């Protein structure tokens, strides 16, 4: 998959997550319908982008990373068989201070409320992410972070 089409996929998946999270409150049966984050604030996951490749060689995150994959489990045992529930681009363009050009900034956070459609209230989840390079190679899983939905 080339980079542009991949970004489109990333955007679509993220958009789907946002749409689903905005549909909460409609009846029972699990899912996100009962989850209502505190008004005025959201839960976000922050991380440090990788600076070296898995083999220890230096890496330029702005050039070598393409996107991140987000994984959810109710335990910490993430495996290669797990499927990501969301993807986000590894960088985004921001307007430079002079207002005449864009500079590339690394993605370092993600609003977890976008993943609420994949959760049930009252449970503890673990979130992990993987970095995916422009060549399609994936990193290992980040150390899982607990996410309590109470």
């Amino acid at each position, binding site marked *: 998959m080339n980079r542009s089409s991949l970004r489109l996929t990333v955007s679509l998946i993220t958009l789907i997550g946002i749409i689903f999270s905005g549909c909460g409150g409609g009846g029972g049966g699990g899912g996100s319908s009962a989850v209502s984050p505190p008004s005025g604030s959201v839960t976000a996951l922050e*991380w440090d982008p990788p600076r070296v490749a898995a083999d220890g060689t230096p890496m*330029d995150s702005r050039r070598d990373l393409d996107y991140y994959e987000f994984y959810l489990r109710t335990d910490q045992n993430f495996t290669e068989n797990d499927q990501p529930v969301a993807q986000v681009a590894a960088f985004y363009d921001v307007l430079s201070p002079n207002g005449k050009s864009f500079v590339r900034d690394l993605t370092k956070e993600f*609003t977890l409320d976008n993943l609420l459609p994949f959760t049930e209230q009252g449970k503890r989840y673990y979130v992990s992410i993987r970095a995916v390079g422009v060549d399609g190679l994936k990193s290992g899983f*980040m150390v899982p972070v607990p996410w309590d939905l109470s």
Partner: protein
Amino acid sequence: MKAKNFFFVGILLFAFGLTRAALGETRQLAWSAVTTYTDGSPIEAGQTVSYKAYWTQDPWLDAETLRPLVSSTAVTSATFDPAAEGMVGYQAVYFTVKTVVGTGTESTLSAALPWNPPAVIPGAPSAPADLGITRIATSTSSGTWQLSWGPVTTYANGTPIQGKTVRYAIFWTADAGLSTASLSPLASSTTQTSLTFDPAASGMTGGQRVYFAAKSVLDTGEESALSASLSWSVSNKGPGAPSNGRMVRKNKK
């Protein structure tokens, strides 16, 4: 005014020294200045002399077939683009010029000058774009990788390429500036829009920063500029894992 007919010394056609990229297939038609009437007497001082140039596919210069190249000019040449004028490659055309003296007294047409227009060459093709790389096998120590790019279907000026074969030359280099001397070919001529390669067999070393770039080349010889490069760190392990994951509460924007 003395006579009504004028004398042409000669008419010459030659290619003007401009590049295709600047002005396309520009040509220049030139002729000798008219200074005398047909009886050899000089045109009076103060009389204006102008010229009208025509072209036609009719070797007999039938008046109805004449198409103006220059409607009125005081200089003794006219620059034109054969394609823009509607001249078809390899189909002979004939040029002729007449002189206008003063308020409109015209000479007869000069003798026809035949010329075969060259085939139209729109210019260089577009450079390949959307270079991408993916690993397709792990059978060798450095793996087998596929480099791909988008097909080139238009010239750099945006017009479609028709009736020609587009080939691609693919290069890699460790020089971020993509200097010509540093480029090593991965494929010199392929009609495909992807190729597979083994980094080690191609001379790349693990952890090395390399850049891929491509050119498109038409079977008629025109070649594109070098594409934008794809930067890649030669690796068979992928990126390191993100770290220091933590939950934060943020105010809604």
